[in-house]
């Protein structure tokens, strides 16, 4: 008895000859049921092989790592996180493609064709079993999806996950597996699977502009993490799911077409193939549709006029303006600012505004993800650009701190860094230094050389957030080398700069901090807090004056003026390069306000 005796069996190139002529009238119920049972048994075996495939397990690990790398530096926002989880599924999909190709090509590899042809299962049945066995890849995909979703949720993600986007990741894994089987049935050499995986990986770099959405596995070109909320049609998740499902069907049909040689079956498969291609075309057309104008109008209004969308809260002369949904960040923002305010002898008259803004640079069209405005008339796009020129950060105020949407970390060391960055911004406002400098808005990045208020600002920020001393000390070195420092020219003098991690969390930091200012602040932290507070409170107006020097503050505190010589002896300035100063218009100005 062979599998081809049954009516359900698909004749294949590798099928054994039917025993006994296989007349339809003589087929018994048992023989009819046998191919189905055989396919199911084979599918079970193939699924189990896929479940324990080292490649799939490695893909699972790689997918998890990829998701972690993509998500851990940014704020967990569901409209971005669901897409990044799909990026992790892409790694699983590549592994499944290779594993499925190896499995499907097993019979034709290493001269095993005759052996497999002698088995009861036909090539067609084996292909169906391989396709059904793709269920073995589903646990890995679901495990990755569930674990990633749980982690994102535990980190306090904002928004709600899109089931269509998450389902797209699962469909991507199945589609890649079906493609691997199709490749393996035609090209059994293992290299074919690797080429297929590389083609899948590299294909996303071939398309540009709006057509990038034709590849649902595209993982790079998007600004989702910087949007204040989900945007309908960005990405086109429903069409993506439809396209991936159709690709899975197409892969399966092609795999069967390669192996089945019966005329009627081939006609049916060809019809299914055409239908799948048609659905892919329709899904592609749906993906190329531009994002609805109303949605983009809403987004542009949110960016250009945040006050219309943001909710503001004022407390202790500080105004916090956040987009809807980001209200849960408020306590995390207030903590470092309140820490600074608690140590202030006197507060400035001017209100400090801490405001979120969308960091996509809409004023430079070349920097925008083209899929955002794809398909819209140029006049409409120009109108949006003109509208965005009024965006708050483009006209940044000196007494405001701008927080890029999606950059505020959830926990851990990045949150501690962000707290210090915000505390320093608030402290700079408190000592009358601009907490924000933006070259675009005309604020020049001045340097508070030999000004006591700079050291006071650093001291306040350190008191408010208590960052690790080692990390602060590392700010003296260049991030490129532990034996170099950064420096800038001010009034023909090379000034060493203290660098610390705040640029990632604030849209624009305040003036560059001098290394001398940091050294003095470090000396201040070694003194009793009450002693420093008493000295500052005694003559606050004098200390925040830009003419008061580091030496004067050090003398008042009874500590020696910090010397940079010890530091500079082991380091060499980096960035300034030449020993001769550049022209005065290329040097940083002194902060004199």
């Amino acid at each position, binding site marked *: 008895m062979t599998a081809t005796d049954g009516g359900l069996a698909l004749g294949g190139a590798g099928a054994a000859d039917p025993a006994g002529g296989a007349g339809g009238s003589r087929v018994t119920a048992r023989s009819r049921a046998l191919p189905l049972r055989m396919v199911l048994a084979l599918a079970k075996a193939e699924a189990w092989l896929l479940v324990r495939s080292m*490649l799939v397990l490695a893909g699972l690990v*790689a997918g998890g790592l990829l998701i972690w790398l993509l998500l851990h530096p940014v704020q967990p926002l569901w409209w971005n996180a669901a897409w990044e989880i799909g990026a992790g599924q892409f790694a699983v999909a590549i*592994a499944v493609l290779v594993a499925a190709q190896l499995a499907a090509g097993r019979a034709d590899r290493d001269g095993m064709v005759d052996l497999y042809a002698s088995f009861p299962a036909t090539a067609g049945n084996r292909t169906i079993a391989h396709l059904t066995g793709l269920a073995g890849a589903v646990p890995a995909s679901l495990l990755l999806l569930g674990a990633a979703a749980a982690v994102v949720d535990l980190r306090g993600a904002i928004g709600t996950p899109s089931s269509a986007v998450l389902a797209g990741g699962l469909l991507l894994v199945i589609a890649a597996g079906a493609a691997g089987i199709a490749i393996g049935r035609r090209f059994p050499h293992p290299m074919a699977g*690797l*080429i297929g995986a*590389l083609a899948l990986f*590299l294909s996303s770099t*071939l398309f*540009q502009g709006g057509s990038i959405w034709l590849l649902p596995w595209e993982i790079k070109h998007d600004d989702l993490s910087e949007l204040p909320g989900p945007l309908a049609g960005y990405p086109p998740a429903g069409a993506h799911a439809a396209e991936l499902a159709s690709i899975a069907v197409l892969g399966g049909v092609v795999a069967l077409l390669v192996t089945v040689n019966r005329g009627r079956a081939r006609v049916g498969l060809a019809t299914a193939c055409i239908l799948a291609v048609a659905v892919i075309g329709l899904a592609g057309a749906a993906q190329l549709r531009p994002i609805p104008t109303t949605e983009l109008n809403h987004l542009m209004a949110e960016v250009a006029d945040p006050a219309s969308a943001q909710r503001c809260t004022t407390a202790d002369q500080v105004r916090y303006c956040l987009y809807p949904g980001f209200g849960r960040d408020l306590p995390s923002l207030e903590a470092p600012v309140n820490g600074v305010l608690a140590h202030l002898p006197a507060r400035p008259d001017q209100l400090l505004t801490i405001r979120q803004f969308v960091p996509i640079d809409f004023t430079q069209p070349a920097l925008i993800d083209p899929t955002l405005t794809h398909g819209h008339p140029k006049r409409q796009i120009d109108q949006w650009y003109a509208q965005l020129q009024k965006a708050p950060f483009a006209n940044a105020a000196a007494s405001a701190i701008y927080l890029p949407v999606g950059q505020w970390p959830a926990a851990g060391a990045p949150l501690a860094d962000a707290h210090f960055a915000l505390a320093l911004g608030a402290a700079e406002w408190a000592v009358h230094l601009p907490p924000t400098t933006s070259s675009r808005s005309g604020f020049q990045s001045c340097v508070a050389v030999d000004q006591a208020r700079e050291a006071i600002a650093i001291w306040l920020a350190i008191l408010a957030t208590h960052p690790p001393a080692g990390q602060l000390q590392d700010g003296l070195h260049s991030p490129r080398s532990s034996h170099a420092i950064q420096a800038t020219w001010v009034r023909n003098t090379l000034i060493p700069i203290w660098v610390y991690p705040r640029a990632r969390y604030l849209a624009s930091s305040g003036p560059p901090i001098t290394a001398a200012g940091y050294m003095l602040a470090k000396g201040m932290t070694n003194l009793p807090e009450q002693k420093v507070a008493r000295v500052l409170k005694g003559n606050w107006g004098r200390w925040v004056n830009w003419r008061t020097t580091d030496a004067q503050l050090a003398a008042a505190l009874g500590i020696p003026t910090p010397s940079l010589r010890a530091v500079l002896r082991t380091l060499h300035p980096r960035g300034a390069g030449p020993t001769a100063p550049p022209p005065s218009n290329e040097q940083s100005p002194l902060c004199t306000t």
Partner: protein
Amino acid sequence: MTPPSTDIARAEGATPAPGRPIRHARRHRLAWLRALPLLARHITRTMPWVTLLVGCLAGTIYLTIMAHVAGTSHTPLGQSSVRLAFLSAVAALAFVPRAWFRPVTQATPVPAWVAPVGHILLAAPVLAVTCWTQLRLMAHTIPPDPPGYAPAIYPLIAQLTGWCLLAVAAAACADRSRYADLGGAIAAPVSFAALALAWYAPVTARFLVEPPATTRGVTIAWYAIATAALALTCAVMRDHWHRYTRDRHRLSSPTAAHLLK
């Protein structure tokens, strides 16, 4: 086929035949070198040319398309595109060092590693031509007077050399494992995983990725990796034994214990 010797080799324990010269048939260690001319044809014929050429051509075709896209969008190709395009050649190289019928070849006077090494040597010029072609394609998209300095090529060559030798080492290791029949299908993903880890892990990226590493540092680091990979390949290829892991629990089962008694 080795021609029959006129001398009679003295087997251990055998008595010498009377009237015949007795010479100890100690074969010179490098006697197998005489068989190399005969082996050259065999090595050339068993070389996986199709796999290698498909891998090299696939990357080059991809880069050609990218160069066309770059030409229409007036955006020059960068070294990252060459790196991506070269991945398929690296994948193909992972299928090259394969010792077919090792149990048989190990029994012959010629060392088993001669054929894989011959294959690798044959693959080297193909890879060099591929690299040169891809670099030419990249250079073709760069305008004659680019603003600023063009990045140096020699770190990229060092990097690609390191990638190739890593893939060869992985393939040699896979060939001595239970996955020998799949060869490159295992070695290539392992190589890619190692490369991805080296590229993205902050600890290794400090030395292997430019920036933060310097041009000279990257070059030295990748050539050091290439040397280490070459040493590993040599050690693995000279190893005579399969290194399959055995399940101790299975061995300690009653049946196994009974058999071992």
